[in-house]
């Protein structure tokens, strides 16, 4: 198992490297000149030159490339050209909010996906199954920001049940900070009013993102469980008198899990993309909002840093998924 984890980490290094390379060349080599984009097309050439020198853009492209890799390896994501702060530090401040949103969204999506999908597969062809198919195809076509706005309209504007933006009400942040996740920190501190406030703020964004992503999960859990249920060992288990509940969850679902987990891991990328849109919709102070605000400020160091950060985050998630997979499935382990 240890070798497997090490192997898997080794395998993700070239993956990260490829993304870093693509990001670098997209930002530096594509026709748009970041300095011009930053300063506007009418900037005097001398100013442009000075700026290029300051950012190290006058060096040969390969030298820039290796400097960039070296910096990232040392945890140096550069300084924001807008705030002058180290990008990594800014990202680490914003990261817990994004993590909180994605974790809760993932919980919503996995919960709906596993239960709805498994039951639909078990009752293949029943009204429940048909509803699952319609759900997955219909909800999949919801733009996440539109869905968020509609939830805001209904639960915030019409019903006044829940707040429509932000991560907390003023003066309602947990203190002291442990993890940066408001819900977790509030529990650790025992600040129940803060916990209530945080959860209220979290419900709409995580439901928005979670429900939209769940459409894919329902569909794929259903497909995989249908496939497993058709296999002979399921009939064999029934022929030994195993209870239906055990057949469904212990035999069918557990065997269907490895492919499901793998695809869920891949869908995590989609979740992060959706998180950017959700954050903007709900003024959620995470990395997504940060990225969009820096794009409008034309802060290319920050944009580059954010994307590198996302790349590493995705790689870690996919390693995690594979390790869980190996833990479930003895054949992967060796």
């Amino acid at each position, binding site marked *: 198992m240890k*070798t497997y984890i090490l*192997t898997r980490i*080794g*395998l993700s290094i070239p993956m990260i490297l490829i993304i870093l390379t693509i990001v670098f060349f997209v930002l530096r080599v594509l026709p748009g000149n970041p300095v011009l984009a930053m300063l506007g097309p009418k900037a005097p050439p001398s100013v442009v030159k000075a700026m290029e020198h300051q950012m190290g853009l006058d060096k040969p492209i390969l030298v820039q490339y290796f400097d960039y890799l070296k910096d990232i390896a040392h945890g140096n994501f550069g300084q924001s050209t807008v705030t002058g702060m180290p990008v990594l530090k800014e990202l680490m401040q914003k990261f817990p909010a994004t993590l909180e949103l994605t974790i809760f969204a993932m919980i919503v999506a996995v919960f709906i996906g596993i239960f709805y999908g498994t039951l639909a597969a078990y009752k293949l062809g029943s009204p429940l199954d048909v509803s699952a198919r319609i759900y997955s195809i219909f909800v999949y076509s919801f733009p996440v920001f539109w869905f968020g706005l509609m939830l805001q309209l209904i639960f915030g504007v019409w019903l006044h049940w829940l707040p429509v933006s932000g991560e907390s009400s003023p003066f309602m942040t947990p203190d002291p900070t442990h993890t940066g996740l408001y819900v977790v920190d509030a529990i650790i501190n025992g600040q129940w009013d803060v916990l209530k406030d945080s959860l209220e703020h979290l419900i709409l964004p995580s439901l928005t993102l979670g429900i939209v992503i769940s459409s894919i999960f329902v569909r794929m859990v259903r497909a995989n469980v249908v496939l497993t249920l058709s296999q002979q060992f399921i009939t064999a288990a029934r022929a030994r008198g195993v209870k239906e509940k055990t057949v469904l969850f212990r035999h069918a679902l557990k065997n269907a899990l490895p492919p499901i987990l793998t695809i869920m891991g891949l869908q995590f990328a989609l979740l992060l993309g959706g998180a950017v849109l959700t954050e903007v919709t709900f003024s959620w102070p995470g990395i997504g909002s940060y990225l969009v605000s820096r794009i409008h400020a034309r802060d290319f160091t920050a944009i580059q840093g954010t994307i590198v950060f996302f790349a590493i985050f995705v790689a870690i998630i996919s390693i995690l998924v594979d390790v869980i997979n190996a833990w479930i499935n003895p054949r992967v382990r060796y």
Partner: protein
Amino acid sequence: MRMNEETFLKVEHLRKEFDLKVSWIKAIFKGKKKTVKAVDDVSFEIKRGETLGIVGESGSGKTTLGRTVIRLIEPTSGKIIMDNTDLTKLKGDVLRKARRDFSIIFQDPMASLNPYMRIGKIVSHPLEIHNIGTKQERKEKILSLFEKFNLTPPEEFYNRFPKYLSGGQRQRVVIARALITNPKFIVADEPTAMLDVSVRSQILKLMIQVKEEFKLTYLFITHDLAGAKYICDRIGVMYLGRIIEIAKKEDIFKEPLHPYTKILMSAIPIPDPNTKREKLMPKGEIPSATNIPKGCRFHTRCPFAKDICKEQEPELRDIGGRLVACHLV
């Protein structure tokens, strides 16, 4: 290269090794490459018009042998001399054009037919590839072949897609495609294994019938010894990549010499409840082809194994006009 006039195909010291697929990361961690010796030094001859059967269990390398003989798989080493031409020397377009002279019939007839091609097109394609005949001639030839193969009405079969045919009909189409260029040699790789009992003998009979008509030579690969008895003239028994006994059909069935052949024979169920036989059982299970036992490759399972069998690999020896690779015979 001079050959006995009667000999049509001569295979000499044919070997095929596969590298076991390992992900490159694992290769770094574990180092050594594993190879599978699927065909391990096989030599045999087939006379013109003869049918040689190759029997063996799955994993014996018989399927690889059949594909390698007609160069669907590249041999690692060895010679394949067909009609005085060494097939291993042919390359590119020359090999491609030579293919009109030999073909193969696979086990799974549905999988052998392109699902998006009509039956007529499937059978006429070899003619198109080798530029044989005009469009009209091709069609006439195919229709008459369909008639002969009982694919009637031929015109209707000509325009059908494979999925609308039964298993036996599909296999007849496959045979028609294999024969359409008038080849001299056919490799049949378990042509009846996927068919229903009542259809099997139908296909076997058809193959015997066309053999006479088209003056064919067969290499007939099968695990079904009983079926092999009807179509083969001689039979070679393969075990773990090597032929361990090869003899006339009558000899093999009357008196198998190699212990493995004996075991194989006694394992075949006989559809007659009145027959009672002494059953001979091997020890253990067939070893992996990545790890072929030293000495005689059968000694780990042989009920008669002696010390010499563990040390020395027996060669095929001539014993009364038949070849056996066993120290004890």
